[in-house]
């Protein structure tokens, strides 16, 4: 396979075996995260999460009123979309082909620029969009969809989740999940007031008072994803780009705070033995729960600080893109 020499591949595989990865981490160590919520003023909720020295994901949540679906007239819905910032798909060639998915596609085409001409970027966008949609689009995501319905049989809220990948240094799907959970935590939906006009006719009014807006119901149950990469006989979490290139098989497991599994997605070409599979699921449950706890703690702390500042009338400064990398 191009873009990684046999010696590097062996070195990484042996490192996983001896529980000492190329950057000194053990198999189940996570890189540090940098998180900030509420950075897009036009969105109902937003978050930016950076992982390690590279992976950078921005998620915006927008809620809009729309007609209910005829076959499910008492619920709202969640619509996800993931996009890579254009430059990444192009640049990777010059930076070693770190992106495993692209590198794999280029096996058949020796010139890396060829993959750019095709629908490589679109495929990858779709793949990640689907992964996110499958977990968050149904009842397993824990959000109370019935509460998103404004008038039964007529109108409901649609929650649009837009993730943009700004930079890539491995483990992008897990980062998207975390940024999404953070952005949804930050999201407020305006309150609506329904008037009964009689004869089964209803009308509603959206209250635009910011103070009145409320959080989505069931936000605490939103799962996150834990991706386990099988390299050699071991499996690791939070893989680096080079590790992703060496991955034989990977399993992304969506777990919620109660350790319930909300989705499993297998990726890459290799197989996973049933015994290892259950071991990986156990690991994911444990890691996922601990991640959620720490993430929730951070989100609550951040929100409390913002509230305190607001009470004291201080200026709430969001750094957004102007933060130091």
């Amino acid at each position, binding site marked *: 396979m191009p873009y990684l020499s046999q010696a590097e591949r062996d070195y990484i595989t042996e490192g996983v075996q001896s529980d000492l990865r190329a950057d000194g981490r053990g198999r189940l160590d996570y890189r540090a995260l940098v998180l900030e919520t509420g950075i897009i003023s036009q969105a109902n909720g937003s978050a930016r999460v950076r992982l390690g020295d590279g992976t950078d994901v921005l998620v915006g949540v927008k809620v809009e009123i729309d007609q209910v679906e005829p076959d499910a007239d008492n619920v709202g819905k969640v619509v996800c979309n993931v996009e890579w*910032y254009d430059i990444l798909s192009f640049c990777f060639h010059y930076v070693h082909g770190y992106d495993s998915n692209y590198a794999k596609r280029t096996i058949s085409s020796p010139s890396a620029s060829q993959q750019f001409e095709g629908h490589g970027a679109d495929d990858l966008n779709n793949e990640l969009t689907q992964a996110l949609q499958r977990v968050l689009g149904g009842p397993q995501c824990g959000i109370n969809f019935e509460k998103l319905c404004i008038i039964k049989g007529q109108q409901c809220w649609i929650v649009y989740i837009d993730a943009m990948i700004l*930079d890539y240094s491995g483990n992008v799907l897990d980062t998207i999940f975390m940024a999404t959970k953070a952005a949804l935590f930050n999201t407020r939906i305006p309150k609506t007031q329904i008037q009964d006009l009689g004869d089964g006719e209803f009308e509603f009014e959206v209250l635009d008072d910011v103070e009145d807006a409320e959080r989505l119901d069931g936000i605490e149950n939103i799962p996150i994803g834990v991706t386990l990469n099988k390299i050699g006989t071991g499996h690791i979490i939070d893989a680096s780009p080079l590790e992703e290139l060496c991955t034989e098989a990977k399993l992304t497991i969506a777990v919620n705070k109660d350790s319930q599994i909300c989705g499993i997605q297998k990726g890459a070409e290799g197989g996973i033995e049933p015994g290892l599979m259950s071991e990986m699921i156990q690991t994911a449950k444990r890691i996922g729960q601990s991640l959620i706890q720490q993430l929730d703690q951070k989100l609550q702390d951040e929100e409390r600080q913002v509230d305190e500042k607001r009470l004291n009338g201080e200026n709430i400064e969001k750094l957004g893109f102007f933060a130091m990398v």
Partner: protein
Amino acid sequence: MKRSDGRTEATQLRAFAASQSLLNRADGSAKFSFGTHLNSYLGESTVVASVVGPAEVKIRDEKMDEATVELIVRPAVGFPTTKEKVLERALRQTMEPTILSGMMPRTLIQIVVQIEQVDGNILSTAVNAISLAMLDAGLPMSSLVASITAAIDQQDNILLDPSSQELENATSVHTFAFDNTSSYNLLLSHSAGAFSEDQYFSCLEACKHASERVHAFIRTAVEKKIQKEYQQLQSSS
């Protein structure tokens, strides 16, 4: 006077904001905004631009005596439309002449412009963002470009850096870009609507003045960054 977004003067520009090197993977990248979210009562126009290159070029696009410049505009939502194509064309025509592409034969320079938020003229914002991104990438350039938009409202006032609302009510809109050489050459002029010759030249003059402020801002932004890096290098060697 009072403008629709609360500004008090016709010549008042929204505060500029910029950051450089925000994307690790590109050779150069920058974000430029008219208006910052810190004073949120003003709207905000924001563009992220990135530059890759000079880099290996596809043989099909290879030029023997100069670099191939590619420019792509991506809208904030959805897929690129003819509107983006028009913008691409205008931006290319403005930026390409300033790149010393003869110094980089048989290479590719790819510029990607991602629109983030639109309140006002996006062309100006994009020009300024690309300028900064090209600086960040260290591309050889003959000069630096800065752009400003002016609108003429129903009362014949010239409004600088108009918001979207002001653009809607304007009788004509003019976008100009100038370089930073001593003669302040005009590199871009886009006008729409009905206007007289006098009005055009008053807009040109007003934008020229305002563009000096953009140039000064870009200089400060770059200066701060280079100064910091230089100090760190000095202290470690």
